[in-house]
């Protein structure tokens, strides 16, 4: 907005500029007219007497200044993504939130667009001066009235599927012939949408489907998922005798375009064998298919044939047909071939390289999607592959800069990182990351893929790197670049354990609380077991005990209908140990009591730790209670009792109380309940 206002003053400034440079003699007569405008510049005019070379008009790139400025801004490792900075309350804390908020923001925008689109009558004022077309509703109501081919064309252009079909039928009934060209564009429309209406909701779903993260997708699942994306998410499935088929049948004459539209529609909406039959019809009619149709057919190959070799043969057939029909293949053709080869097992591995060579021979540069397919052909579901292919691919990718040419381009970096993870090759991972940071390559990762990519990278770092390096990455990336998954935190904990740096755990716990993972049982277990495993200096023990207290709080009813977590025996034991080591006997005893409540049995280690603590802090009563508890749970309390007698200085009453506990480990249930009663 400020920009606009400033723009308004341009003419005045031009005048000012002009005035300063005027020869002195002029000033006197002018200043009498507009001395205010001249102001202080009068004096300067005496100085600038020399010849002034007026600048030629210069055309500026309207984005150059902004791009330069944008390049000066680096990522702030302490802040969330820019899109979340409108509202601090809505700063995402983990990947789920991040996804939710970014989708919400987008869906808010879509809602606004929906309103503008559906109620254009409320937006008929041109408020902005100059007008801003992208903020105004588009005309979506047809302007042509009546039944005519012109009207039909307009409805097709506006993508009104149902209206177009109705109009077409009316025209036919009226006996008006519809030109082949118009019928073909109607077929295009029908085939693209597979017989359904294009609706904003569907587009939304489609988008969501596209953004769905592949966090837990195993190698085998991934291609299947992609197939679903390609065929199902983009609309309804092809139905028998839908409008497209009907219109195709009643067309008096059909040309190659009609056939191609049908084939593409059928492939897009999952009617693969129909598409193949249609292709055969096309050949019989002696038409030639276009390159897009061949691309679609090649993508359909894995669904047409069962066996790997047959699949490849069919794909090769299509390619040969292309060559025969003098159809020049494009990048997308070869990408389709490679994509199909992903589902050709071992055949794919041999053939994909031949395909790449063919591309090279035809001077077609592979896009990221080509490499993506190649990597998954080579590395998906196969163990123990060598890293030759990927490092060659990376060397190639490093040398080039990429623009998006294929929708599959987006998945390259995640696939590459996945391969690095599978190969457990940290140097390759660094190389992938270097490539990603080069130029505009980062743009190929959307928010979800970014999270996926970094969480893989981070897991690999935890596994392979020095702990200092891991922590450095962690500090820099977490929550500004990506949101660690619980799995990443587990990896980090293991890395800390391996490097013997358990004192960092409390700060990690802080982060975990921030990220909202404090109710994940597996994480809590890991935290507790790591903290309670070894004896540490007292400072660390105190910090650990604080963590334990917070973990304990999670298990307690917190109000507002939040269901507290169930204690597990081991978790409880760990907490007791942690409290005991920190000398918090009272807290530890409270935890001991939980064992009885939830019918769990403390381990010997837990009880020993508790006794040690009670001894150090001089709480013999608690120790006796503990022995009593052990007895009541039917544990062999004799050993504990002996320990007590040896190590504690007990008063007479305490001794008596201790004596009264039935010490027999194998005493019957009734006995132990007796002792309870005492």
């Amino acid at each position, binding site marked *: 907005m400020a920009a606009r206002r400033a723009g308004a003053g*341009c003419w005045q400034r031009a005048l000012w500029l002009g005035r300063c440079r005027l020869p002195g003699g002029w000033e006197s007569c002018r200043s009498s007219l507009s001395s205010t405008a001249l102001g202080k510049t009068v004096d300067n005019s005496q100085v600038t007497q020399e010849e002034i070379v007026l600048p030629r008009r210069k055309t500026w790139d309207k984005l150059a200044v902004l791009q330069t400025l944008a390049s000066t801004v680096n990522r702030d490792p302490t802040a969330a993504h820019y899109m979340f900075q409108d509202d601090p309350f809505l700063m995402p804390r983990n990947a789920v939130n991040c996804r939710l908020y970014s989708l919400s923001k987008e869906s808010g925008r879509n809602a606004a667009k929906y309103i503008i689109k559906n109620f254009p009558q409320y937006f008929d004022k041109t408020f902005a001066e100059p007008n801003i077309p992208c903020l105004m509703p588009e005309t979506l109501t047809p302007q042509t009235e009546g039944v005519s081919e012109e009207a039909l064309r307009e409805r097709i252009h506006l993508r009104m599927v149902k209206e177009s079909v109705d109009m077409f039928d009316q025209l036919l009934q009226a006996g008006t012939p519809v030109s082949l060209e118009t019928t073909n564009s109607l077929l295009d429309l029908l085939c693209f949408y597979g017989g359904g209406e294009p609706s904003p909701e569907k587009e939304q779903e489609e988008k969501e489907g596209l953004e769905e993260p592949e966090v837990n997708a195993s190698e085998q699942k991934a291609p299947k998922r992609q197939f679903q994306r390609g065929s199902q998410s983009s609309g309804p499935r092809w139905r028998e005798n839908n409008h497209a088929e009907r219109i195709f049948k009643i067309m008096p004459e059909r040309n190659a375009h009609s056939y191609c539209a049908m084939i593409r529609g059928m492939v897009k909406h999952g009617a693969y064998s129909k598409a193949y039959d249609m292709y055969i019809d096309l050949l019989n009619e002696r038409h030639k298919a276009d390159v897009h149709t061949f691309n679609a057919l090649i993508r359909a190959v894995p669904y047409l044939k069962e066996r790997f070799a047959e699949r490849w043969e069919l794909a090769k057939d299509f390619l040969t047909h292309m060559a025969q029909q003098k159809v020049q293949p494009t990048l997308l053709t070869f990408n389709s071939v490679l994509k199909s080869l992903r589902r050709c097992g071992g055949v794919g591995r041999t053939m994909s390289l*031949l395909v790449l060579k063919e591309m090279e021979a035809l001077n077609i540069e592979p896009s990221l999607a080509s490499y993506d397919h190649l990597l998954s052909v080579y590395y998906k579901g196969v163990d123990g592959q060598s890293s030759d292919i990927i490092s060659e691919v990376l060397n190639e990718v490093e040398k080039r800069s990429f623009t*998006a040419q294929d929708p599959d381009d987006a998945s390259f970096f995640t696939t590459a990182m996945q391969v690095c993870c599978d190969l457990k090759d940290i140097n390759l991972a660094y190389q992938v990351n270097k490539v990603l940071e080069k130029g505009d390559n980062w743009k190929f990762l959307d928010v979800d893929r970014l999270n996926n990519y970094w969480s893989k990278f981070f897991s690999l770092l935890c596994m392979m790197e020095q702990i200092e390096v891991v922590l450095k990455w962690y500090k820099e990336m977490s929550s500004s670049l990506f949101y660690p998954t619980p799995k990443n935190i587990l990896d980090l904990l293991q890395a800390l354990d391996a490097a013997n740096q358990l004192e960092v755990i409390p700060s990690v716990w802080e982060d975990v609380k921030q990220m909202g993972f404090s109710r994940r049982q597996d994480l809590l277990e890991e935290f507790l077991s790591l903290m309670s495993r070894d004896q540490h200096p007292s400072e660390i023990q105190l910090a650990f005990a604080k963590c334990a207290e917070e973990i304990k709080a999670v298990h307690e009813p917190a109000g507002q209908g939040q269901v507290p977590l169930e204690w597990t025996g081991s978790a409880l034991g760990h907490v007791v140990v942690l409290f005991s080591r920190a000398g918090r006997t009272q807290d530890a005893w409270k935890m001991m009591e939980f064992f009885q409540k939830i019918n769990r049995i403390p381990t010997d280690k837990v009880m020993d730790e508790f006794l040690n603590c009670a001894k150090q802090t001089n709480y013999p009563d608690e120790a006796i209670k503990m022995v009593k508890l052990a007895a009541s749970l039917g544990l062999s309390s004799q050993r504990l009792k002996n320990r007590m007698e040896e190590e504690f200085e007990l008063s007479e009453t305490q001794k008596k109380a201790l004596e009264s506990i039935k010490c027999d480990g194998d005493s019957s249930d009734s006995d132990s309940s007796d002792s309870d009663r005492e």
Partner: protein
Amino acid sequence: MWGGVRGGGGLAVRLLGARSKQEFFSTSSVLSKDKEKSAASKESSPEGAAKKQEDGAGTPKQQLLDIIGDMKVEVSYRKKLQQLKTSENKKQAMNQLEGLDSEGSVPQGITEDTQRGKPLSPELVKAASAVASSLPRNKKKTESELLAQLRRHEETTDKQKKGGIINIRNVISEMTIKRQSPAQRGARMSGRISLQLDEDGQRLRREGSSALSVDSRRSLKVGKRLNIFTKASTEPEHALKTVSSPTIWDLEFAKEVAAVTAQPPRNGFEEMIQWTKEGILWEFPIDNEVGMEDDAEFHEHIFLEKHLEGFPKEGPVRHFMELVICGLSKNPYLSVKQKVEHIEWFQKYFEEKKELLQEI
């Protein structure tokens, strides 16, 4: 972003610059009000008066309110629209008047001048009368001739000013970004890179053969090709491409590909880049060349002294002409050609009266 009022102060600089100083710093809306008033005052003929009542905006109170309302920093749009509409009506009325006037191309004298005189500044009138008084005969006629020319000039200015607004709107609405189709881009990309890669390929091949002796089959650079296609010249393909218009498939595919790299902006500047591309934001860098015709540069608009060579070096005529070019230099609504023509008119005029002038 809705609030982007273009024009603002820049438009305030008006014809012949002889308007009083405070107007220099007032906003355009006030000025245009001013103009409206003047237009209204012109319409003292019965026809005009009727029109005025129809408009309903002509009552002084209303005008005053309008002016006050517009003097706020934020110009409300409804008002602005209204104003635009009324001023357009006025313009029509004015054109009608003009049509009536046009029969008598010779100005009718000073009486009319007082009627319509408001748009011309007293100083100019003074200068004109000075010129006229230097002539022996027909002083009044000369003066009114000069003033009439100036006024006609102002009318053109007004007309073109309005035209200018529309023009700018057209320019901006045509600002939609033309996207290169990805296929084209791809073709260009591959063409650009292929050469370079060939060299690298050779280098790699050597490396590959030495390092990967065991599994030479499994390398990107070694091995056979499919040998299905032959490299064809790209010319026939291009011819085909230009003929057919994009189908829904092409459009949607382009969208899909564009979506691959369309990431949310990472900082404020990137957001501004996005807005600029969408046409929401004023284009950077903000310079004095927006909306200018292509042929003229700004100095041609502003430094008009060079056109005064045909005039006497001193005297009242010179003074008058200096005032004229001073005003012209501040007028953004006339093209350079019109400005020059305007000056030439005076030159011819004074040329014709030369004998009279020299008689003194």
